[in-house]
């Protein structure tokens, strides 16, 4: 594991290395170098299994964090690569040529976060939602409760309590 991290540290200047467990390490890579890093890891380091790819919305910093988790089935190691892209006009290089299923992940991210991956197959087709007419729902500034109350004819009579206060009242 250490050799691999050293190798990619030298080549791609990854930072923020966190050894979460013995066999999984999180690293941060610059946006431009990410796809090159992934390609290198797949081709040369044996990280052949693509586990997942997803995004995290850090709205306070105006950034999206994209996480790619790669797995080396032989050595039984995982490396998670974080990369940060700007929330405005979020675009990222596509990785669909490396693994077939990546285009599905990218389709989902396009729909749910609004991150564009130019060149990815069928990326503009709707994937999960149908006729969605609001900001992408997984973004932090999309308020699901307000949207649901506005749209879906809530049945009157539902009471919502703050759990901690409700418990305090009942316990005393």
């Amino acid at each position: 594991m250490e050799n691999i991290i050293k190798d990619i540290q030298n080549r791609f200047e990854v930072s923020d290395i966190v050894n979460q467990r013995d066999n999984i390490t999180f690293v941060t890579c610059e946006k431009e170098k990410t796809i090159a890093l992934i390609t290198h890891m797949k081709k040369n380091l044996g990280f052949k299994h693509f586990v997942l790819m997803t995004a995290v919305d850090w709205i306070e910093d105006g950034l999206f964090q994209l996480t790619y988790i790669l797995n080396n089935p032989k050595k039984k190691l995982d490396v998670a690569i974080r990369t940060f892209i700007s929330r405005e006009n979020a675009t990222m290089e596509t990785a669909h040529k490396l693994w077939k299923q990546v285009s599905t992940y990218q389709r989902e991210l396009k729909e749910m976060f609004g991150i564009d991956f130019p060149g990815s197959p069928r990326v503009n087709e709707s994937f999960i939602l149908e006729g969605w007419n609001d900001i992408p729902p997984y973004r932090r500034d999309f308020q699901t409760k307000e949207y649901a109350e506005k749209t879906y004819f809530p049945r009157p009579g539902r009471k919502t309590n703050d759990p901690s206060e409700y418990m305090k009242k009942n316990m005393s």
Partner: protein
Amino acid sequence: MKKQKNIFNWQADRSKYPEKKKNGKLDIDMSSGKFVKLWQGPNHPGITGNMSLELTISGDEVVEAKTHVGYLHRGFEKLMERRLWIQCFPTCVRMCVAEPDYNEYLLAKSAEELSGIEIPEMAEWLRTLVLEMARLQSLLRTVPGQAGTLSLGVGVQWGVYLRDLVLDLFEELTGGRVYHMYIIPGGVRGLLPDGFKKRMEEVLKKIDEFVKNIENLMFNNIVFKKRTIGVGYIKPSWIDKYGIVGPNARAAGFKRDVRKDYPYLKYNELDFEVTSEKDSDIFARSMVRKKELIMTIDLIRQIMAKMPKKGDIKAPTPNVLHWKIPKGETYVRSESSRGEYGFYTVSDGSKTPRRINLRGPSYTHAISLLERMLVNANIADVHSIMVSLQTCPPEIER
């Protein structure tokens, strides 16, 4: 495609149809009258769960397939962002209805890992037991379900009946029939009831008998063999290319099992061999599942024997209503009956999770792989191929 041996085994070589254009794409002209667009699902009894396939067929042969999902989207990942950590537990179980316990375990495990809680040994044993029971009830549905797609319904009836018995045991242990919410952060909710071992053994004996019957009914059945051997072939080179995991990869000869490769809970104390087959067709995949069923029964027996009688079942946790998990991120995985099942969890140090993302095996199996496998398949084989991949739509769209 195989060469024709004699007139009785004649099979048309249709690999050249439809013709390809010069740029390598298929020449599918809907107005030519040679092609029919066929929608299967969501309202179709052969489809697993609620999803749909858009097939373009020419004669009996599928020339293009597209999977459509999203009929079950509830936005879990969004909903959990506005719930407390403890409130996420009853929510996350509902992500996949076929075997909900993996969701509980993975969320609990990520929360424990991020906040540095060690759980007591007894709780680990009980978690292992619950996860294996979940696999057992899922396999009891899917092993005969493969024959069910070919209208051999008897096996399904027996299997679902036995699954009900397993669910009864679940009910006894956890109080819930389908959704258990038994695994909580720090441990589990309760010890085994009195006499549970005996009742478990009774059910396992019935399942043993069922395995024998299903062996005769399915795996020695000439028509079943005819319909499944050589159908739905996955090339070994596709395993990494398409991200295939679990029994589907094991049927192609890849001995990958999270339980063996990345032992979690008590799996390194249990004695088991990773099952595998070589042929990588539907028959091989159902064989792997059947072996897995036998193995699961064996594992449950081992767990029952090795498990201590008493012990702590819960490590102390902070008040869950004010529980803040330190900033960090992690990825934990486990082996569900469909393959690698993982949670990617990000915490920002607040009361609610920042992001929880589920990596379900069906995500890759049911979309990119299925779309590829259905090309040149016979229309009659579409559902057996789909069921043999054991797709579960709710974990695709969450």
